[in-house]
């Protein structure tokens, strides 16, 4: 059944996968070649430019995750999940099959980025002190995709009722935050939550750090 699910999802999303794969292939090549052409003689500046380009990797991962998660569930939403309800399998198994098929769709994107990183770093005349990380970067991108796809998939798989409850909880949190900040201006709940999510061991912490294809 997994193969059937993969074929079904590929039919619906292949154009998105191809477009995003091209972006993933081009990103490392453009980042390195652009920086090398303009700052090849000033490597510290080249590394700073490369570090700025590194912000595009988690951004691309987020874009891929949200796009594919929405596309995977688009047909079910259009048909009000009637097809899924007719299938003689438990709900959780159906969702799991969708998820695993979605992961298979992510593989070409990770491979495209890895290929782009290898092409970008080949034939560059690097000083001996600098090191290249095409494989590590591709693995990190893949793991970031896994995390962000899981988040987007969970939201996309939720029912309208569940999403409505989620939005109400967010609204309530914002209302509490405003009330707290009026009573105690130094207390910032939103900042506290963002810090907790983005620092160790929060889920967004591994998405930070250096996304450097070439580094010291």
């Amino acid at each position: 059944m997994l193969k059937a699910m993969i074929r079904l999802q590929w039919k619906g999303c292949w154009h998105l996968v191809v477009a995003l794969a091209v972006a993933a292939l081009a990103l490392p090549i453009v980042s390195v070649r652009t920086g090398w052409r303009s700052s090849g003689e000033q490597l510290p500046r080249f590394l700073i430019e490369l570090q700025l380009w590194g912000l595009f990797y988690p951004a691309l991962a987020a874009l891929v995750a949200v796009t594919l998660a929405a596309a995977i569930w688009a047909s079910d939403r259009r048909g009000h999940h009637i097809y899924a309800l007719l299938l003689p399998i438990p709900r959780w198994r159906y969702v799991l099959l969708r998820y695993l098929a979605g992961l298979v769709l992510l593989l070409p994107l990770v491979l495209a980025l890895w290929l782009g990183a290898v092409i970008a770093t080949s034939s560059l005349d690097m000083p001996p002190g600098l090191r290249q990380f095409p494989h590590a970067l591709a693995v990190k991108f893949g793991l970031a995709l896994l995390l962000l796809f899981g988040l987007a998939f969970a939201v996309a798989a939720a029912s309208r009722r569940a999403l409505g409850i989620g939005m109400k909880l967010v609204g309530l949190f914002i209302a509490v935050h405003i009330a707290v900040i009026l009573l105690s201006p130094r207390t910032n709940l939103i900042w506290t939550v963002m810090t907790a999510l983005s620092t160790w061991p929060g889920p967004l912490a591994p998405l930070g750090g250096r996304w450097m294809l070439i580094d010291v």
Partner: protein
Amino acid sequence: MSRPVLGILLLALAGPAAAQNAAAWRDSAYRLSTERQRVWDSLMQDFSEAEEIARRAGLVVSATTEYRAIAEDVLGRFDSARRRWFGPALPAAAGFRITLRSGESWSFGRRTSGPQSLSIAGIPDTDETFRLAPFVPDETLGSAEKAAQRLLGEYGALMMASAPAAIRGWLRAGSLTEFSVDSRREGAMYSLVTGVGKAQRDCVRGDSQSCAHALGIRRSGDPDAGGEYYPLVRADLLLAALEQGGEWAWTRLMAVESGTVEQALAAAAGMPADSLLLRWRDGLLALQPDRGPLDLSAAGLILGWSALILAAGLGIARWV
């Protein structure tokens, strides 16, 4: 009377004038200069509320009200740091005085506190002492670490002013200790590994002759050797030599008054220049991060959170 007639009469009646006495002007300028210096010295030497807080091995720290709490800590940090490179040496026999000053504090149109200061002096603190009194932001004096670092930066400038001419000319920088150790070493490491010239690349590969050329110590004679490292890298080498040489490294360096930079560095470090260069290079390369963009703990964290999110997704997914 017409103007031309008036002009002729004035010319005719003009006689020799007494020569001006420049001495009076000179004395006046001298008195003003002395008065200005007296006011400046008073400002440098003493804030009315500053009190001596602690003494340690020939150093005295004094501070006004707001900074008394950190004064002793600042003294300890400053003394430990400066001994690491300069030992017991002072910029001059007459001592020194560095006063960090901050301005008044205002809040909603009201003055909440007057100017504050924190001073470190090297005994004897006489009238001929070197004095520095920079204005600093409040945040510098808010932390003992930052205050000590700023004092150390100013102290480095004083020490460099008394260094041999060859070292001063080679270093081309105002202060050795302007940056913290970590940021200086990281900057030097970056410069070392990102050098694009032939000598710079060979230095990373372990050729001490190339290192000497890239650091401006000794010319290699190779026309294709390429450029040199920035002054920050030279400062790092000099401090590495002083640290290697121990307590009397600075004194030995000062003794090489008319020697070359290579001789001065070797004297300071207590070893041949080539050995110093290779040791310094190895030290910088050891600062390179030992991992790339990915580490195992981050990968484990991602897998853990992904499993949790999947379980949550399977649980909350509902059709109606």
